[in-house]
């Protein structure tokens, strides 16, 4: 398909605003969640959507040579050039004169309302052609398009229309008629109770457009559906001339090759169009008054202004001298006058607030240079003299194709063609391509796109197409571009004795390999696509069928917001299914692989590692991850100075928390257990397949009082003090978390139990302890469970006795103890009987236990 020449087009929209266009219709559409929303609108509003989408497309592409004009017919007023000159052509109104459209054009269309009269589309057509012709007087090469939007309910004076057709054909005008509720074979739609007038008109429209060289009549529903399809903007790649060289053409020309070739892009990255930023304009009181005079409050309008980016420069002068300061300030004021953007008035104050202690400097006073460490290397031009290079592609040598490393390919691919105007050059290139292809080799080459430009290294790959031979270029990395990170081997594990391991949790077993083998086989895509004409299944997924979902979704969203005044009442429909078709594996394949997948799940036993709570460390280093990382690992200490906007963009930021408070913590023997969690490195090597990661602790879900969860939400306030008393590893703030963390690490159980016990007692004896009762009960429940499992039964019994005693003493906390008793034996003393069940020992009799909680 040959791409149409973009731009250089004037489109005339002829819009029917006759009385019948004001009839209401109900439009059902899905919102982005797939729910149906019904909207009442007039036929005019409905069909205008099509016009607006077309105009928005022009705005989106932003070409100066893509212009349009709008003429309405069936209007009460008359204003058009034919009428002005010769009279007649009533009820045709030139609504928007031809020009490059903008948001104002769309806003103006929104004001259209159906009239109380009728208009003749043929009158409008003649006016439209005439207006267009006059505008394009001597621009013969421009494309001329006319679009009529009508419901076909108004009578048409069918007379002499052949002359109009001839005129349109002579000037190469194309005509599209978009009809509201016209019968449509493709959509299998036939309007019930169609009026006679409309039936005749529809027939006439079809006849009219089919007589024309370039005419089409279609239904509005179809037209709207087509605009929602993701379409690919065919970009014709420009052929850029360059030279392919081999050898030294300057001094050994007779032995060197120089071919004129053309390069054109084979792939080119495409990005979603960027969003423009807008701000709601706050009205000054003056303006308010005015509007109140003009309009009703209900009719009040809100203005959104497009924002412009502005850069300001600041310098920290604090260590500098004062005199210097004054000087520069003076200079700056001068500059302000010159610039006179009037932008500095309110700004200066602004600055002081945001960039404290920094001083604003004008760009003109700045000197360009580079940083060489702390050394300043001046460079007023912004770049040093460039390496002298000569335009062209130099071949450096050849190597076997099979040794090519695909992952080194750095970017966009280019075609290299023999000069289309010289058969000899084409043959020359073709001979090289064929010889390389035959030999199975590729060339290493150095490309300079223009004289003086930085060279790029790459490879040339021979491609014999059906009727032409060419090379394709892929850029390869320079030595500087390759990062040699080291990674531990996945296959060759060596232990400390220097022996190679054959069995290790990191190494898959034969059973696991077998399961994976089946899984890979069943997930094959080569015969998972649609069927071809012969009924053979084609491969599923191809680059040529995969639309960039972001580009098309963003475009759809932009168009939608541009043509709708309120996205709350008229929400954005869901993405076109075509965009999502490769988002999930094909159903056939999923079904086929089900069994193999189950087996994989069984044998590999992959477990998500529970999110770890980071504790303050001795040295106070805490990672503050960005969002990506936080999905996996949580940190609860977030530095207070972290600006919310910035953090997302960085992969990992290390932030430090001043160690003051936590430094004193845990200076005893268990140092190494409590202080650590570089959460990155922490759990490596500890997980064995046989010991899957611990399940989340039971009881953590039971959290009636809204007390802190073991893994706090990310939004946890930044400055939480874990509240650990000196020497304690369990703090008062998040006792349960601290406790569980210590338990999960193993051998500090006794200390953790003891500390938690003390914390609980402290908490419940404090004033206003009531709001933490449920949290403390949860703590106790888990603590008791741990004691049973970890053989700390005595510790529990000592604790619970102490708790009881303190609660019942004065001032105490009787309520809390009553709550414990209400729970029955569950939180009481651990009896002989119960201890035995857990292979533990206790000297408490069952009776004693019963009595303990009953008093």
């Amino acid at each position, binding site marked *: 398909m040959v791409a149409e020449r973009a731009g250089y087009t004037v489109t005339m929209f002829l819009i029917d605003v006759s009385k019948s266009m004001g009839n209401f219709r109900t439009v059902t559409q899905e919102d982005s969640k797939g729910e149906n929303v019904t909207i009442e609108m007039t036929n005019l509003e409905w069909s205008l959507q099509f016009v607006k989408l077309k105009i928005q497309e022009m705005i989106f592409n932003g070409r100066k040579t893509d212009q349009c004009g709008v003429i309405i017919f069936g209007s009460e007023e008359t204003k058009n050039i034919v009428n002005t000159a010769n009279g007649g052509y009533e009820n045709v109104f030139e609504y928007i004169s031809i020009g490059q459209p903008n948001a104002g054009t769309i806003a103006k269309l929104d004001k259209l309302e159906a009239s109380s009269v009728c208009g003749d589309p043929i009158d409008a057509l003649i006016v439209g052609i005439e207006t267009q012709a006059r505008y394009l007087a001597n621009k013969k090469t421009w494309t001329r398009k006319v679009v009529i939007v009508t419901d076909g309910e108004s009578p048409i004076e069918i007379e002499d229309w052949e002359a109009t057709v001839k005129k349109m054909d002579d000037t190469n005008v194309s005509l599209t008629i978009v009809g509201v509720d016209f019968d449509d074979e493709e959509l299998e739609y036939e309007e019930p109770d169609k009026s006679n007038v409309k039936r005749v008109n529809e027939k006439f429209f079809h006849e009219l457009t089919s007589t024309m060289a370039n005419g089409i009549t279609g239904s509005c529903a179809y037209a709207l559906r087509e605009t929602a399809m993701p379409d690919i903007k065919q970009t014709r790649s420009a052929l850029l001339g360059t030279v392919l060289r081999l050898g030294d053409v300057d001094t050994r020309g007779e032995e060197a090759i120089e071919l004129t070739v053309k390069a054109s892009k084979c792939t080119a990255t495409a990005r979603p169009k960027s969003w423009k930023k807008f701000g709601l304009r706050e009205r000054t009181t003056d303006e308010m008054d005015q509007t109140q005079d003009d309009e009703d409050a209900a009719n009040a309008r809100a203005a959104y202004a497009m924002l412009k980016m502005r850069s300001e420069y600041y310098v920290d002068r604090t260590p500098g001298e004062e005199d210097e300061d004054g000087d520069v300030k003076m200079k700056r004021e001068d500059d302000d006058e010159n610039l006179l953007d009037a932008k500095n008035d309110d700004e200066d104050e602004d600055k002081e607030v945001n960039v404290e202690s920094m001083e604003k400097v004008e760009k003109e006073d700045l000197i360009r240079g580079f940083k060489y460490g702390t050394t300043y290397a001046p460079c007023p031009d912004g770049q040093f003299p460039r390496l002298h290079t000569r335009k062209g592609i130099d071949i450096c040598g050849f190597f076997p194709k099979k040794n090519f490393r695909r992952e080194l390919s750095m970017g966009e691919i280019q075609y290299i063609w023999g000069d289309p105007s010289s058969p000899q050059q084409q043959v020359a290139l*073709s001979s090289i391509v064929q010889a390389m292809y035959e030999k199975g080799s590729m060339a290493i080459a150095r490309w300079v796109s223009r004289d003086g430009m930085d060279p790029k290294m790459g490879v040339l790959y021979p491609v014999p197409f059906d009727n032409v031979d060419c090379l394709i270029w892929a850029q390869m990395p320079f030595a500087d571009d390759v990062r040699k990170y080291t990674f531990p081997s996945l296959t060759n594990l060596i232990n400390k004795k220097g022996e190679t391991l054959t069995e290790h949790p990191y190494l898959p077993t034969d059973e696991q390999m077998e399961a994976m083998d089946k899984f890979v086989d069943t997930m094959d895509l080569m015969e998972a696509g649609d069927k071809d004409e012969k009924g053979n299944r084609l491969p599923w997924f191809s680059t040529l069928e995969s639309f*960039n979902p972001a580009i098309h979704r963003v475009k759809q969203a932009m168009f939608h917001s541009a043509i709708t005044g309120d996205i709350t009442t008229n929400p954005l429909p869901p993405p076109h299914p075509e965009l999502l078709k490769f988002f999930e594996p094909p159903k056939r394949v999923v079904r086929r692989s089900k069994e193999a997948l189950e087996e994989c799940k069984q044998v590999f036993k992959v477990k998500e590692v529970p999110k770890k709570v980071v504790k303050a460390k001795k040295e106070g280093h805490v990672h503050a991850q960005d969002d990506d990382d936080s999905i996996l690992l949580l940190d609860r200490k977030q530095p207070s100075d972290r600006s919310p906007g910035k953090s997302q963009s960085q992969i990992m930021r290390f932030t430090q928390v001043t160690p003051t408070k936590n430094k004193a913590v845990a200076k005893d023997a268990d140092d190494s257990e409590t202080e650590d969690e570089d959460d990155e490195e922490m759990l490596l090597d500890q997980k064995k397949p046989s010991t899957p990661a611990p399940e989340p602790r039971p009881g953590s879900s039971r959290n009636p009082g809204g007390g802190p969860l073991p893994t706090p939400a990310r939004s946890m306030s930044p400055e939480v003090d874990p509240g650990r008393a000196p020497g304690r590893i369990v703090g008062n703030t998040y006792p349960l978390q601290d406790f569980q963390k210590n338990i999960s690490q193993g051998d500090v159980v006794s200390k953790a139990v003891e500390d938690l016990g003390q914390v609980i007692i402290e908490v419940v004896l404090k004033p206003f302890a009531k709001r933490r009762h449920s949290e403390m009960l949860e703590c106790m429940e888990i603590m008791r469970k741990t004691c049973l499992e970890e053989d700390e039964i005595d510790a529990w019994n000592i604790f619970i006795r102490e708790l009881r005693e303190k609660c019942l003493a004065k001032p105490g906390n009787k309520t809390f103890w009553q709550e414990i008793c209400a729970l029955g034996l569950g939180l009481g003393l651990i009896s002989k009987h119960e201890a035995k069940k857990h292979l533990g020992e206790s000297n408490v009799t069952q009776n004693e236990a019963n009595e303990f909680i009953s008093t």
Partner: protein
Amino acid sequence: MPPYDDWNKIDEEEEEEIQDNSIFESKRDVILFCIDCSASMLKLYDDPNYEDVQTCHLYTALEAAVQIQKRKILVGPNDSVGILLFNTSRKAESTRGQGAEIKRNTYLFQPIAPLSASKIQEIIQLLDTFREDTGEFLRRFPPVSDGRVPMGDVFTSCNWVMRDGAPKTASKRIFLITDEDTPHPSTGRKQLVTSARTTLIDLTQAGVTVEPFFISTEEKSFDVTSFYSSVLLPTNLIDEEELQEDSSILPESISISRIEDLLSQMRFREVPKRAIFSVPFELANGLKIGVKGYGLVTEQKKGSYKYFVDLGDRMEVATVRTTYVDEDHQAEVEKAKMVYGAELGANVAPEDGEEEDETIGGAGVRTVKSGSRPFYTAEEARSFRTLDLEPGIKLLGFKPREELAFEDNVKHSLFVFPDEMTYSGSKRTFSALLRTMIRKKVIAIVRALTRRNATPVFCALLPQEENIDESGWTDPTGFHLIPLPFADEVRTAPIEEGFRASDEMKDLARAWIDKLSVKNGAYPPDSYPNPALAYHNIQLQASAFREEFDPDSFEDLTLPKYDMIHKRAGKLIQQWKEGLSNDNSANLVVPAAAGSKRKADVSVDEAEIKSKYDSGTLGKLRVDQLKEFLKSKGQSVAGKKADLVDRVSEWFDAH
């Protein structure tokens, strides 16, 4: 037109996508070179590269440190470096500052400080002095006479130096260089091992990584097991218990090399390894493993210039602050209050007289009914880009390796490695998948959203086997994540038909291609340092060192080896050229393309132009003729007629 700088500013959303590089710049890196200064390190021997020159391990180590510093200063001008020497009896001169109170027999030669030209020059000077008088090191850093300093003390010193000198948020590393595998040969050995280990754990807990570089020579080979394997920690952090388990594996980053390879070994670790993303990899519903992504191939660009303010006594970098303003009202708008929408389009001259209301508004203003919402929030705008996906990689299925076409490329690849920390069992599952895919010669097609702000892309996962090349570098095992182009990004071939070579011509070409082929070669990235970047950096360095730069001394290693080409294939190329001039195609003319625009016939015979050139009457040709000729030679057609004439004669001069 906005000034040049503004063109280069990218909207934040896009920035996220392009940002690959910047994460390396945004984080500061600190390296403390910790170099053994014992008698064996100072022992002189003949320099293998220069005749009659003596060198020693310490010299090589310091020189490597200079090279690393020189490179780091270009890549990360905000990074800091320091040098600590141990096993020397030299003591700190001052009693204040970093390094004043470190353990005995360790000496802080250069405190940790941001990189600067003067620091590098200081070492270079020292090295130059040594070249002249090899006794210099012995005088300046006399080795300890009695035994060696316990490694525990060395680590403690490092810890203190780091604590005092390194910025808190930086990644911190110690490059430990020693040739001694048994630092504590005699009494109290066991205790010293324990103390070394404890201090090392302290160090790691302070967020410092130790990267050892062990020097091994023929006379004195280095045995890691004699001391270091029981001290060094596999990866960064591990608890005591794990250390005692003998099944635990060796740290990934031990390097034992000959002294000559020290620099290249260090360069492998020059940049701290940082993951670009860490996401779940979903093999199928209910089977997820953890992976991290690294950029192994990323274009290294010239640093961008900064704006400086002359403060009289010094130059200070100006901080840039970007704001968004409503220009008509001169009001700055907070980020939280911004809304997002489509371009409003060009300014159209206001309609004559009628309806001068705000609807059409001023340029760049959109007016709607109060209370309605015509724009999206930042959150909504982002969800349109991500299509509401969570970051992650989703496996879609497998295809044969050949399905990954050469031309299906738009962007550099990323390297994916399993992350056991987020999902236990990731490594074995990953390994099994990798091995199976290598055996079956297949690639995987995946859908990837690597970061929260990115856009979803389809990628090929290409399995990488472990290869060890001659330089000792190991290609790590893992997957290459290669983004595939979308339909929107593929351009159709603009030329479908052309003249093709005869078999004779092909054979003539084959003859010289054979001669110019490297048998088992491949594209060697290491052989091609970026000349433009190097040229820039040399000038930058010269400017910082206040030295003169001599452009002639610069060697561009990417230029073809002309001599070799002509020697091997010159004659064959000549034969091919003869064949070409005798080929039928020489007499063919391409019929003028039926273009839409009719043009005067401007084609002029090359011979005719040549004769005009010879007679010095090129000026008689018309501009369009000159242009046509230049265009056919791939030359620029810009400029006035005189320029064109000049250019044409230049071309004939050259040919």
